[in-house]
């Protein structure tokens, strides 16, 4: 298929999304749906623009990203070494621990949220802990599997060539295991985003989840849609980006065609190099540093404000009901 054919195919395939968006715009305008409950797309987009303009949305986005990235880093810090050790050296222990780890990984993170709140207090630690907990398991399991299933031929050849232990780890095991580990990281990152929004809805004073929850409490309907749309878009983009990164980083790996991608031709595959790695690292550190500052500022404001949650009300200038109540 030529470039033009690819574009044509792409346009046809995205027309479903376009149709949906058009319907969203026209249905409330023509009063097929009550525009009070379903504001048209343009109103929602305008609301997103407004939130972006006042700086509310970037702040909440930054706070949420900081929580997510910190949790992810902590999980990586724990799961990667543990996974390599369990997968490579203490395989007997890994066998013995496997059922326990499976049980722990299946524990519902929402049920644990109050326990984390109990142990770590209502500050940032509890949220970061939940994110870490959720992300830890896929990374750990995939790391164990990855290091265990390295082709024995490669290991034997390296051993025959007389490599040291550290060389074996850095030059043979890790390169062979990285593609599988990355799948774990991707799954962990999507889960992180999922859980983070819920955790922020359940108990937080800032972040994207809180933005939606707060709008719902105050019946700011366009703002609910704006927040939800933004979260959905962000989650979708994050997922796509990670999949794309996985495909381009590990281009030699074969992926089974799924029903959504079958027959699609990738005209150009971008290979990330040094520049991309530096840009990625820079973005992550900016999120970490700025996010930490912002989170501290928000928490101090909350402390200063009378009794926790009312301190956040001034961000929107609207009264806020305390988060613990039901709908």
């Amino acid at each position, binding site marked *: 298929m030529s470039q033009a054919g690819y574009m044509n195919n792409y346009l046809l*395939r995205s027309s479903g999304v376009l149709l949906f968006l058009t319907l969203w715009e026209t249905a409330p305008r023509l009063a097929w749906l009550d525009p009070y*409950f379903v504001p048209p797309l343009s109103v929602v987009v305008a609301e997103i623009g407004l939130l972006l303009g006042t700086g509310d949305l970037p702040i909440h986005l930054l706070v949420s990203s900081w929580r997510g990235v910190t949790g992810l880093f902590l999980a990586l810090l724990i799961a990667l070494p543990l996974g390599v050790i369990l997968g490579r050296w203490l395989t007997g222990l890994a066998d013995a621990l496997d059922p326990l780890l499976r*049980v722990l990984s299946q524990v519902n993170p929402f049920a644990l949220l109050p326990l984390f709140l109990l142990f770590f207090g209502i500050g940032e630690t509890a949220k970061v802990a939940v994110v870490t907990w959720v992300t830890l398991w896929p990374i750990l399991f995939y790391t164990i599997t990855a290091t265990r299933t390295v082709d024995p031929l490669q290991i034997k050849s390296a051993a025959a060539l007389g490599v040291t232990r550290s060389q074996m780890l850095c030059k043979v095991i890790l390169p062979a295991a990285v593609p599988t580990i990355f799948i774990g990281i991707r799954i962990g990152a999507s889960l992180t985003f999922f859980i983070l929004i819920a955790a922020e809805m359940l108990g937080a004073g800032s972040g994207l989840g809180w933005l939606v929850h707060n709008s719902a409490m105050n019946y700011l309907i366009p703002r609910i849609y704006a927040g939800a749309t933004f979260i959905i878009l962000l989650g*979708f983009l994050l997922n796509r980006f990670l999949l794309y990164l996985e495909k381009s980083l590990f281009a030699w790996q074969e992926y089974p065609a799924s*029903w*959504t991608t079958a027959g699609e031709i990738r005209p150009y595959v971008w290979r990330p190099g040094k520049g991309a790695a530096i840009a990625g690292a820079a973005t992550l550190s900016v999120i970490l540093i700025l996010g930490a500052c912002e989170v501290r500022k928000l928490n101090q404001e909350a402390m200063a404000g009378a009794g926790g949650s009312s301190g956040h009300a001034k961000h929107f200038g609207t009264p806020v009901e305390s988060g613990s109540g039901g709908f």
Partner: protein
Amino acid sequence: MSKAELMESGETVAHGGVDLSGALDSLNEKLMDYYGIAVLVILWEVAPRLGWIDSQFFPALSSVFAEGVKLWADGTLLLHIAVSLQRTFLGLMGATALAIPLGFVLGGWFPRFTRFLSPLLNLFGQINAFSLFPLFVLFFGIGELAKFSIIFWSCLWPILFMTIAGVQRVEPLFIKLARSMGGGRRILLVHVLIPGALPSIFTGVRIGATVAFLMLIAAEMIGASSGLGWLVHNSSVNYIIPRLYLAALLIALLGMIFNYSLHRLEAHLIHGTTN
């Protein structure tokens, strides 16, 4: 665990003739899976009792059990479990009832239309369901319908996707074979497509069930007046710590039982269809 161990080793000794170390080895193999869990259970009981952890924050397993017995005796525990299970099953059944036929129609009869729809469906499937929760509440009110709809929505997608994938991945040879032998649409559907797609569909249902349970607990924590999620939320708000642990433990156990029984059912059904 130790009781079972004693009984089992006692049995091998009683039988005699078998050499002991071999028997112990095989016993070790059998119990291998449970060592980690046993250690955790023992630690949970012993650590708070010996004051290694503050028992106020981390009650011993036995006091969590005592709380469970108390709640069971006045019937509230069973009520909460029943309510949670009912919500999960209703949502899952509703989603299955819609997604499987829809998946067959989309995947089997309108493959081009499905390709055209797939970006939209993919987008819907990747929607973070929590961000939709306030909207569901807005439309369906705060009653059961909102909880039903959120569970319905979140398990609809995995089941639909896996059904479409399952139908489209049925071995083309089988379809051609059935056609060439003069099988009509009904025969093709009942004897070729459904058995061929069943493993994939079942995986979808299993994923859906896991998601349903996860969403249910979150939904009950955000807004409900009964159910296990509510029990967790309510205990934490009122600082009834043993009850909090009890509810968290029950949710973990129920989730595992759910998962395990679906795995067993899957193995049973798929085994039955392939042979």
